[in-house]
């Protein structure tokens, strides 16, 4: 069996499991899973830049929010229906990531992290400042009647689950394909030894910019999908926590693996859900895990799996 076929089977298996889960678990859990799958798309977008290209951004919430508000504002103020609004959300995120990428890539390392953080903060504050349109921190609800795509009412929990699954599936297969193309392998080379990659004739800056654009657009699609499926757009999703979450999910699940983002998102979401039943200080868990991961397990769950057992894991 060739590597490509094996990887495809692995990815399809994961999707089959996610499909089966709907029929096995309670509605509470399937609701959680729908949310998790949308967030996993965000995590996969982040992973492309962090895990595969080696660029640590602290400002991805800006891209997520661009998609969310692109979608939400198009519905609220332009009266668009779901499909064109999703497209507008996608395009918003694409444009924002291209601009930010162009500017931020003039820096590297720690400066890159700070610049992305700053742009994201400015984005969040601008959403607050433009409160008359965006309703700031409070956010706005997207009416149930509007959350219809192709005649299907996505506010129903079964439709919502499968819409999330389809979205996740498309992005999951897309990433699985992308990372084994020449482009994907060059990103890994850039992560591993950028100077060597440069002297092999690869245009490092162009590759990084493309990585940021794809990463940011995926994040924006997740944001738009979240607004569509869960009926809400708010400034909290542009706050710094939402830039830290994908880092946390990807680190925990395994940076630079295709399955890692999903694993990390599932794990962390449930961990935080359980913790928040005991205390309002649930982010303590997030903090502890970040420290422990950095100290002892920088490869994350799937990363360790790949190192010890399955070296072919994509």
């Amino acid at each position, binding site marked *: 069996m060739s590597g490509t076929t094996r990887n495809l089977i692995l990815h399809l298996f994961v999707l089959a499991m996610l499909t089966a889960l709907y029929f096995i678990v309670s509605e509470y859990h399937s609701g959680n899973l729908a949310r998790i799958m949308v967030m996993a798309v965000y995590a996969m977008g982040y992973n492309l830049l962090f895990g595969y290209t080696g660029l640590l951004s602290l400002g991805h919430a800006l891209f997520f929010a661009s998609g969310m508000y692109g979608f939400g504002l198009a519905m609220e103020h332009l009266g668009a229906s779901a499909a064109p609004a999703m497209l507008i959300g996608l395009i918003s995120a694409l444009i924002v990531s291209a601009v930010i990428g162009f500017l931020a890539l003039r820096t590297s390392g720690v400066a890159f992290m700070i610049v992305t953080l700053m742009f994201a903060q400015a984005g969040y504050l601008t959403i607050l400042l433009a409160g008359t349109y965006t309703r700031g921190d409070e956010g706005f609800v997207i009416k149930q009647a509007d959350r219809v795509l192709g005649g299907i009412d996505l506010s129903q929990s079964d439709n919502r689950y499968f819409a999330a699954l389809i979205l996740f599936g498309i992005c999951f297969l897309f990433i699985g394909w992308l990372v084994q193309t020449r482009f994907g392998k060059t990103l890994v080379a850039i992560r591993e030894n950028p100077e*060597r990659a440069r002297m092999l004739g690869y245009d490092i800056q162009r590759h990084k910019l493309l990585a940021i654009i794809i990463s940011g657009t995926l994040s924006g699609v997740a944001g738009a999908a979240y607004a569509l499926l869960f009926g809400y757009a708010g400034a909290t999703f542009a706050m710094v926590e939402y830039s830290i979450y994908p880092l946390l999910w990807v680190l925990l699940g395994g940076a630079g693996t295709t399955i890692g983002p999903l694993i990390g998102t599932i794990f962390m979401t449930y961990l935080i859900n359980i913790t928040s039943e005991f205390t309002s200080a649930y982010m303590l868990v997030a903090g502890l895990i970040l420290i422990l991961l950095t100290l002892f397990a920088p490869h994350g769950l799937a990363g360790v799996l790949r190192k010890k057992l399955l070296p072919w894991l994509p």
Partner: protein
Amino acid sequence: MNLLSTTGLSKNYAGLQAVSDVNFDLPAGQVRALIGPNGAGKTTFVGMLSGRIESSQGTVLFDNTDITRLPAHKRMSMGMAYTFQITSVFSKLSVHENIALAARRVVKGGKSDVDTRVSEVLNKVNLTDRYDQIAGDLSYGHQRLLEIGMGLAQKPRLFILDEPTQGLAESEIDDFIALIAELSTGTTILLIEHNMDVVMRTAHYITVLNFGEILAEGTPDEIRANEAVQSAYLGKS
């Protein structure tokens, strides 16, 4: 026909003249060695050829095209390959992926065409049995060979090697010399070298740098007999 030539190439660093006004011509198909004592400006000069260092003055022509302002990756894609003074491979990736990354940019066609090139190259540098090994686990000598293999995979027109035999064992050096001899039919080679034995056995022509200027140029015999070169080097072998 000159594959590579420079006119008045200079580099100064805030008052320190590292390379002054070098006019250098490299005909296609030649094996040229660039030698000189430490601090002579060899690495700076080659840096300006490869594009890693920006020149202060002068021009660089590759295949009659002015590449003076071209960034390094563009120069490489025009048909240059470069190995680092301190071996630089993708140490966490496998041996075959290292070669594949070099080959992919130049091989048209799909995965199997790239794999064919990878096998060819690994054969040439005798690393076929290490196909799946992680590059960082190889001995230093083998990593150097791997890096040379990466250059070969690009089928370059100009192959620049910065102190390629440094750290190699005697037998590895002999293999290297044989490799260069085989390569030189078709590829132009520029070597920075300190190992005089290697220089004398491989180079068709030698350029000697001292204090950032060309001290002498000639065949190995001419250079060996040159008194100015001898006094600059004073018995280095």
